[in-house]
């Protein structure tokens, strides 16, 4: 099953118990796209997920980076394998 790690304020906003930790979410296996993953997160944590991760047109908001094994997931239609470990983090400029 895919696993999503959400770093930064969003993880804490979705689960206030995640003090001193990022939020880890295990999702249902299946033929998932990134859009499906976001739908599952929304079903579990509410509309805040989409408000943060999507822009006004419903596309991925560039303010966030979603990475899979070092590669940026390019868009909502990208396939997410069952063994994927996604990282979601607000994009801050490179250091």
């Amino acid at each position, binding site marked *: 099953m895919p696993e999503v790690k959400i770093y930064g304020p969003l*993880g804490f906003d979705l689960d206030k118990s995640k003090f001193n930790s990022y939020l880890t979410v295990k999702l249902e296996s299946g033929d998932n796209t990134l859009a499906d993953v976001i739908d599952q997160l929304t079903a579990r944590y509410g509309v805040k997920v989409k408000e943060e991760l999507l822009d006004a047109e419903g596309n991925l908001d560039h303010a966030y980076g979603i990475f899979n094994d070092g590669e940026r997931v390019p868009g909502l239609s990208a396939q997410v394998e069952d063994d994927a470990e996604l990282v979601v983090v607000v*994009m801050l400029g490179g250091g």
Partner: protein
Amino acid sequence: MHDKKIAWIDLTNRTVKSETIPMEWRRKFLGARGLISYLTWSLTDGKSDPWSPEAPLLIGAGWMTGMPSFGGRTFIGGLSTNKQRVGIGTVGGHFGAEMRYTGFDLLVIRGKSETPVYLNITNDNIEFLDADYLWGLEVRETQEAIRNYLDDHEIRSLVIGPAGENGVRMSPILTGWKNAGGAGWGAGWLMGDKKLKAIAAHGTGEIKLAYPNEYLSWMKEQQDLLLTRKWVKALGRYGSPLLYSVSNSGGWVRSKKTDIPLGKRQEAITADKLDPYTLRMAACDSCPAHCRHSHYISEGKYAGTMGEGPEYSGVSGGGAGHEILDIEAILALTDQSDRAGITVLGGGLVGEINSLMQEGLLTEEDVGYYVDWGDADALSKLIDDVAYRRTPFGDALADKEDAPKRLPPAVSDWVGVYEGGIRGHRANMGGVKSFPLAQMVNVIPSYSKTNRPGMDVLGLPEKFLEEFYGGKVSNDYRSYEGKDRMVWFHEMMYVIGDCLGICRFLTIFNCPHAPKFEEYIELIRLTTGMDFSMEDLWEIANRIITIERLTQEQHGFGSRQWETLPEMWKAPITGGVLAGDSLDPVKVDEFLDGFYKLHGWDSNGVPPKELIKKLGIAKAKKL
């Protein structure tokens, strides 16, 4: 805004002359970095020695510092002790604002005192006070001692620690608990060489605004807008250490031990691990983001550790870079360095000893003890050995003149790389092409944010980028396409922000929707009543950068032959998602051609006479 003064301070004779900053200088250089670079160039020539009494140390508050703005930075400058370039450093905190309230915007400090001295700046007055009672004190102790001695707890001070007093090459000038600037070019050492321990300021004067009501209303809108931005909210909650999760997840920062990203091993030092130690998030003057952790460790090995930070570079270059995957150790080492007034975990030379030893370039016999990966105790010992020059190795590493003779050759080579401004990135950082390319052409190598286009990693749509940058730019950070334009554009935007005292984190470093020239024009108009056009700001930016280039050139460094990259960055990356990637020398040459052309410099990277004339560049006549 127009009544602020420049003070000409002579430490040898203990005299001060002051005058209102000429409007012509404001028109051409705005403030802070612009004025500092102009005066450094004007006051020096190819024969200038940073250790001569005539060598200037300049302190400048941003033109918008001390008011509601986008941060309120203070700039430190002078002739760099490393390769004789312009040295510029910047600190956050509150010193610059306090200095502006005294009526002074810029200090030009020359001469040398025979005995330790400090400056006490009050409204329109600067006095020299005996610093015997401060000499030898740590950074925080010094500031507290000044407040107690002068019985004024609203004083803000810019100080050096023991490392600056001891002539340590990597010592910055500091204010508050952790704000440090100029370490890469030895600013603290320069101040210590003048026997100047501190500059204290407390003013009660005004900053007169051209349109105060309109300004406050406009600025509130701007700050409210910023506070809706996701990256600003993230900075306010987790500070710059959150950046490490971005760069590690993206694969473009590596552990020095493995040359690959830490991957899951990052989890020990992610920003959220700071939560148990964070008392609050603090802000620099006038900043809406409040991105710095005030921390305290209450129990365990590091009980009693208290300070501010760490920043991204402390977690990344320092912690991850040296396999110190222990957030408490990172906090403790950061605080120890800040107290001694030395840069270590922020990517300093001392930390590199760890890497050099693992590579067999240094031995236990050379250093006096073994420094293993992740050995925070050994690094702690090394910090004091260098800051206090208390062992032969620490003394040699701290020293400028003797280091090449007293250190093993490979270490001396690395010292040379360090002096070229390559700090904290001993691991191969050739993955994000624009980062090493930017550093290669950086006019102030010790100040890596001079031109680093942090936005390159955001992957924004290319159509948007073309409109934003005014030319085609690839949105793939691995590509070279348009990166000359990208680096140039950020360099030009940043220098104007530096003149105004704006924090880099609230510029387009992080996001294209941050304040830029359009907002700067309105900011200047509402506060000063002076009108600048977009063309004016582009010209001012190029004028300042070209002057910084000319300062390099007058010492023989301002041309293409000096735009080189260290071998470690040219080598193929050995692991991770970027494995096999390397910098292509042909593409690097093409980058240089494009970058020079955008600045109007010739193909050798030298500003031609026609450009110098067009930009109205000439040294100040009577100083």
